């Protein structure tokens, strides 16, 4: 299915929660309000002609100039052979979004990574801990304004 059509279906159903359609990305993306993301994802997974059964990738992006933090969901459907990108833009100061781990369990790990590296907090996540960095690491390394630490415990970094 065309991305444009998916966008239309979604806006028809969720109204103002579906904010924008970006055609310049590849694959095209839909910007979704962060309150509705779980419902949108759930709908995309379960709707008959959409069947986005797989969450291909979940990434967090630091959009420093806009003062936003984006979480990007790459969804795919193997049966329908289409892909779509969902984006939620969050306040960079305190990025909070609800977890989609209830829709796709794999998101639990992706979200932990996003939390670990960019400090996005996923509300409702059962086990939001650091995953790649040591548990007592300070700061979120993938943020653009990240300051490299000089020391970690007794080691020079």
């Amino acid at each position, binding site marked *: 299915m065309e991305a444009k059509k998916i966008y239309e279906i979604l806006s028809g159903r969720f109204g103002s929660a579906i904010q924008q359609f970006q055609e310049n990305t590849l694959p095209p993306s839909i910007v979704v309000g962060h309150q509705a993301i779980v419902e949108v994802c759930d709908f995309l997974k379960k709707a008959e002609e959409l069947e986005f059964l797989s969450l291909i990738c979940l990434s967090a992006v630091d959009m420093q100039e806009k003062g936003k933090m984006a979480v990007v969901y790459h969804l795919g459907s193997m049966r329908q052979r289409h892909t779509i990108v969902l984006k939620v833009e969050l306040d960079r100061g305190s990025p909070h979004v609800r977890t989609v781990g209830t829709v796709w369990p794999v998101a*639990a790990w992706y979200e*932990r990574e996003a939390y670990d590296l960019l400090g996005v907090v996923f509300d409702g996540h059962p*086990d939001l801990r650091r995953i790649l960095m040591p548990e007592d690491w300070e700061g979120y390394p993938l943020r653009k304004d990240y300051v490299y630490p000089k020391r970690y415990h007794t080691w020079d970094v």
Partner: protein
Amino acid sequence: MSAVPSTVHLLFFYFFAAMTIASALLVVLLRNIVQSAFALFFTLFGVAGIYILLGADFVGVTQVLIYIGGVMILIVFGVMLTHNSYSVDIFNRLGTLVMGTISAIVTFTIIYYAIRQVPWRLIGYKASIPTTRPIGTLLMTDYLLPFELASVLLVLAMVGAAYLIRSELRVGKERKDRDKRGAGLERKDA
């Protein structure tokens, strides 16, 4: 064995006797319960050695096979699998020490006199003869009833043990079923 000059015989006897007594003392005196269980190994081994010196090679070998290969392992397993066997510290408090000494002295006195009283039939040194066949024959003729009774007892014990294990399994299964029913409310493991 007894064809070997008696000095060697004696030497071995003292060796095994010393080993038995020393390790038996360790069993009693060691504070670490696992270590004392393992010390029992040497006690049993020493006893087996004495059996062999007495010309009872079959009994000696059976002692090693059953007591060390079987009973010992069971004891050690039991000790090891017991709760907190790491931290169990056996205190020899003064009261128990005194009581233990007294009862030990009494027991040994009784045994000593018993040994002295029995009119032992001494057969002297004889070339070692195979004991396996006579033992087998005796077990199947004169001592058939005790032998069979012992077997029945063992089978009973085994069945009992199996039953105990099974009942524990059953309880465990019920608990598991109950857990499964309540599982929906538990949080998901990430």
